[in-house]
């Protein structure tokens, strides 16, 4: 008996291993022309795992604080062997992860994979996307460079505009009235302890739900398969789909390595709280559409402050988006087309505003 087989038997005797992995063996993936979209969630998961690994590596040298953050990242980039590679991969993978998460979300919207019974899968996924943005926002400040300093100042100030609770949130986030070394310490805590803990737990929930309900088949394909069941095609998850997914992961890793080697992530200049904000202050690209919108809203809209209107609008839109699957059954025909229209509008708005944000002075 081979070593592997005897280990399997050993586990099986004690934990009924075969029963435990039986559902995974049965898991299948529908095969149709839209199947490639199924890879996006897995790629996002892979990038998250990269983040955990490179994040742990960065932790070995990084020191939070106004007098140490910038210097320690500089040390990682210039002195630590392959430090530039680890930090660049961490930064690139973070951005790619947000990108694939957004793509995953929009593919779910356009293929209507969120529909019954997968409402909670959607909600858990949206919460994960918000968490990923929280990761991005908190991680952006950690190198304590000028760009990040002002972006964080603006970002936290925006949260301070929320009526009633805003100021409290802002002080809580900043660890004081202003963005200082105390903010870095806080963001560091969120970034390496609070968010990873919650995210890991939620990823497990998300995966369990995906496992429980199986992969959604797009409505059009589903109707066709129902009409002629002979057409329905499935692929085994293990090993067929999994090996394909592994190839996608391998390519993603190659892309990350290439990006990091060709253009190591910039560090910029050290933040100085007593210098003017330089031109070209901007947040990470995935906040750009909101940033640019706030820039365009006039100081006063009717009797309200412009940014309050902006924040409340984005907040309301986000909440509606989170609850999207619960509106879907209420809408038929025209209503459903309206939802699709809103999704297309949201996507084009985000792309247009982001492009505008980078082009406009």
């Amino acid at each position, binding site marked *: 008996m081979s070593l592997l087989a005897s280990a399997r038997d050993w586990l099986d005797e004690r934990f009924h291993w075969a029963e435990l992995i039986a559902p995974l063996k049965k898991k299948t993936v529908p095969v149709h022309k839209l199947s490639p979209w199924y890879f996006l969630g897995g790629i996002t998961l892979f990038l998250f795992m990269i983040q955990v690994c490179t994040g742990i590596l960065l932790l070995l040298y990084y020191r939070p604080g106004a007098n140490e953050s910038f210097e320690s990242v500089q040390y990682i980039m210039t002195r630590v062997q392959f430090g530039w590679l680890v930090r660049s991969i961490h930064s690139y993978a973070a951005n790619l992860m947000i990108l694939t998460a957004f793509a995953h979300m929009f593919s779910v919207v356009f293929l209507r994979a969120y529909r019954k019974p997968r409402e909670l899968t959607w909600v858990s996924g949206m919460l994960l996307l918000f968490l990923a943005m929280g990761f991005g926002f908190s991680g952006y400040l950690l190198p304590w460079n000028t760009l990040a300093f002002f972006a964080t*100042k*603006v970002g936290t100030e925006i949260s301070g505009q929320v009526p009633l609770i805003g100021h409290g949130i802002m*002080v809580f986030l900043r660890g*004081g009235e202003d963005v200082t070394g105390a903010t870095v310490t806080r963001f560091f805590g969120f970034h390496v302890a609070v968010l990873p803990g919650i995210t890991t737990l939620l990823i497990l929930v998300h995966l369990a739900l995906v496992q429980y309900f199986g992969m959604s088949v797009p409505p059009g394909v589903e109707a066709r398969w129902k009409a002629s069941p002979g057409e329905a095609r499935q692929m085994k998850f293990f090993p067929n789909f999994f090996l394909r997914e592994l190839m996608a992961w391998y390519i993603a890793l190659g892309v990350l390595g290439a990006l990091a080697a060709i253009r190591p992530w910039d560090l910029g200049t050290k933040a100085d709280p007593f*210098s*003017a904000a330089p031109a070209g202050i901007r947040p990470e690209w995935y906040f750009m559409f909101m940033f640019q919108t*706030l820039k365009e809203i006039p*100081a006063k809209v009717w009797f309200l402050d*412009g940014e309050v209107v902006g924040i409340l609008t984005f907040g309301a839109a986000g909440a509606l988006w989170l609850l999207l699957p619960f509106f879907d059954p209420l809408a038929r025909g025209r209503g459903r087309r309206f939802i699709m229209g809103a999704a297309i509008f949201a996507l084009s708005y985000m792309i247009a505003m982001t492009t505008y944000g980078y082009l406009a002075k």
Partner: protein
Amino acid sequence: MQSHDSTAAGPPRRRFVEAILGGGLLASLASFFYPVLRYLIPPRVVDLGVDEVVAAKVGELRANGSKIFRFGSHPALLVMTTEGEYRALSAVCTHLSCTVQYRSDLHEIWCACHNGLYDLNGRNISGPPPRPLQAFHVHVRGDEIVVSRIREA
């Protein structure tokens, strides 16, 4: 002899015990979380309450030039106009608290974050800023340019 589940005495007594237990549990939970919540709120930093600072030396600035200096715990801006007059203003943009700068090409004060513009009196003239910049009083004492808060009469 009364049985344990007698409806006459049992349930009210049980409800009482449950209320005591539940209340105690809630109270103990509150006593655990209260310090945690208080811990999360950062201690108040004492505002230095500066009323007057030396912003620069005479001759440090040229006409149509500027300097950012520290006024208490916030940045402030000293501008020398083309006419050679000094102006001092808070450098904290009233929109989202970025630090503003003097644009010698525009003769105006500009916030790079969201394109806000103020004139040299601190009035918000274009872009998103909702209020004017706080103005300070400037006077020259010896070779020092002293900036102070404008006292309300």
